[in-house]
């Protein structure tokens, strides 16, 4: 490693002692920093598999103590959590499809060099990035339009993100112009050019934005909190919040009443397991999409 990088970095370069010390300290520091960022998750995994007694006694650090799967069994049989999960999957899948569709609809025309009215649309979009009506007028609007308690309302309200749209537009603009020109000469219209030429060439950015939107929907809290009040439609994050914080209040009560044993102890491992179960889909797609999103963000970041 050292030799090759030395060659790469020029021929008469050698690491001075100072540089060597820096390299070691830098590696150690970043390793420690990364471990600190990861540790809370490792601790949560260990908690979810530990006995309640061990958690409350503060014995669990990195490995499960008195390993058992009770918490996961409890989650598996919890009808409310299952329903919340189903609602979130529904909201995420359709929300992401709608977002991607709208993002493409906006990004493609705005990536064209010129058409009458392009500037007006760009100005309209830019203004919304720096100024908005705010929470209350939007809330009144949603009420007036009868969009409360409908996932469709949430989907329409967050139709697309301007930032993501600009990332996609920048990507379209970076594709070689000759391709569309030759297609246009053969008589292809804009829709054919978009579907047959631009989209197949844009898979990395499509993958990145799909990930961003999907994660956004999966994690969304404020939207459902404001606009979904029907318990039948409760989403996973709302449910998780209820569950985690209700456990906290219940615990306080139990403490005050001096009941120290059973109900309290089931909570901690159950909470940890519920947290993990609700993040599993993200953790699963994360490694596959990682190579795309770094590129995608860079495209948007540098030119947007």
């Amino acid at each position, binding site marked *: 490693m050292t030799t090759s990088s030395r060659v790469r970095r*020029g021929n008469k370069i050698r690491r001075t002692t100072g*540089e060597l010390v820096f390299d070691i300290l830098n590696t150690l520091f970043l390793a420690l920093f990364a471990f600190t960022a990861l540790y809370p998750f490792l*601790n949560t995994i260990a908690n979810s598999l530990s006995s309640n007694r061990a958690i409350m006694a503060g014995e669990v650090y990195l490995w499960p103590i008195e390993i058992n799967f009770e918490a996961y069994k409890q989650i598996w049989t919890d009808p409310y959590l299952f329903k919340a999960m189903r609602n979130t999957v529904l909201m995420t899948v359709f929300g992401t499809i709608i977002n991607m569709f709208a993002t493409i609809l906006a990004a493609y025309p705005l990536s064209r*060099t010129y058409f009458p009215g392009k500037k007006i*649309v760009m100005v309209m979009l830019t203004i919304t990035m720096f*100024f908005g009506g705010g929470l209350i007028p939007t809330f009144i609007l949603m009420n007036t339009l009868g969009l409360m308690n409908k996932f469709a309302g949430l989907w329409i309200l967050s139709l697309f993100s301007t930032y993501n749209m600009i990332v996609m537009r920048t990507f379209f603009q970076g594709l070689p112009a000759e391709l569309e020109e030759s297609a246009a000469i053969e008589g292809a219209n804009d829709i054919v050019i978009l579907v047959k030429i631009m989209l197949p060439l844009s898979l990395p950015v499509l993958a990145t934005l799909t990930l961003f939107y999907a994660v956004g929907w999966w994690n969304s*809290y404020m939207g459902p909190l404001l606009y979904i009040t029907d318990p039948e439609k409760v989403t996973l994050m709302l449910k998780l919040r209820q569950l985690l914080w209700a456990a906290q209040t219940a615990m306080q009560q139990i403490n005050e009443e001096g009941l120290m044993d059973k109900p309290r102890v089931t909570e901690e491992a159950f909470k940890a397991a519920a947290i993990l179960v609700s*993040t599993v889909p993200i953790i699963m797609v*994360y490694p596959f999409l990682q190579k795309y999103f770094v590129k995608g963000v860079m495209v948007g*970041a540098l030119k947007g």
Partner: protein
Amino acid sequence: MTQLPSAIKPQRLTKRERLWRDMRRAKYLYIMLAPIVLYLIVFKYLPMGGIVIAFKDFKLGRGILGSDWVGMKNFQELFRSPDFKLILRNSIMLNVYLVVFTFPIPVILALLLNELRALRFKRVVQSVLYLPHFLSWVVLAGILIAMLSPSSGVVNRIIVFFGGEPIYFMADKTWWIVTFVVSSVWKEAGWGTIIFLAAISGIDPEQYEAARIDGASRFRQVLHVTLPAILPTVSILLILRMGSMMDVGFEHVYMLQNSYVRSVSDVFSVYVYRIGIERLRFSYTSAIGLFQALVNLVILLGTNYLAKKVSETSLF
């Protein structure tokens, strides 16, 4: 796209004819944009118009147009209220802490990551640091609160192990602010490096070459090549950040907040939710929203103006 018909029809067109021709050619683009523009008008610009309720006594039953005008009454009430002073102070305080402590960290991290020579190790570190960005505040706060628990949390176990007293992180006002800032670093510092690493990767290797020939050490290379190269990105991000000095993320505060620390943690977003949505004081909270949006805009434009004066980089 505009190449072909001009070759076939070489005659000159009037301005209006040219406009018509361009518009006809773009008909599919208009079809695509129509729903987008409709969306912007209904869901972005109508609410902007809805801000007028800040100057009205809004009643749900009477609608926005039917409600009575009250002039500046909502604003007078707002500026007189002790709540307002508190949330204004907290919003500024938390934002200043966030900018001072969390803004430089991604820059430093990116510089350190860039100096790593073991590429596989670098990738692993990056993957780990990006991860929290993809998780919600519900999840992160849930984990944090468990870890910081005075009785069973790992952090306090370690403090006790080294002979300290358990700290009530979530209930003590100072420690709550620390927790708030650190949790922000945890979630976003790694992700924030991407944009700087992208800027660094765009640096021409010859610049390093030249610096080395001049005998510059690696530290001086960072100081005189890498840092100046990412400075424009840093300033653009800082200007953009100034445009949200009144905003503190709703979910971030809402999840970590509790009744013990309300006096340092109540900020605009949480307050508007609690008073506006839960107690249905629409007009009063719209006035807060308008105040907040305007202050943000003024700070953004002011910073942008200053940046333009003292340097080359600015938003517009």
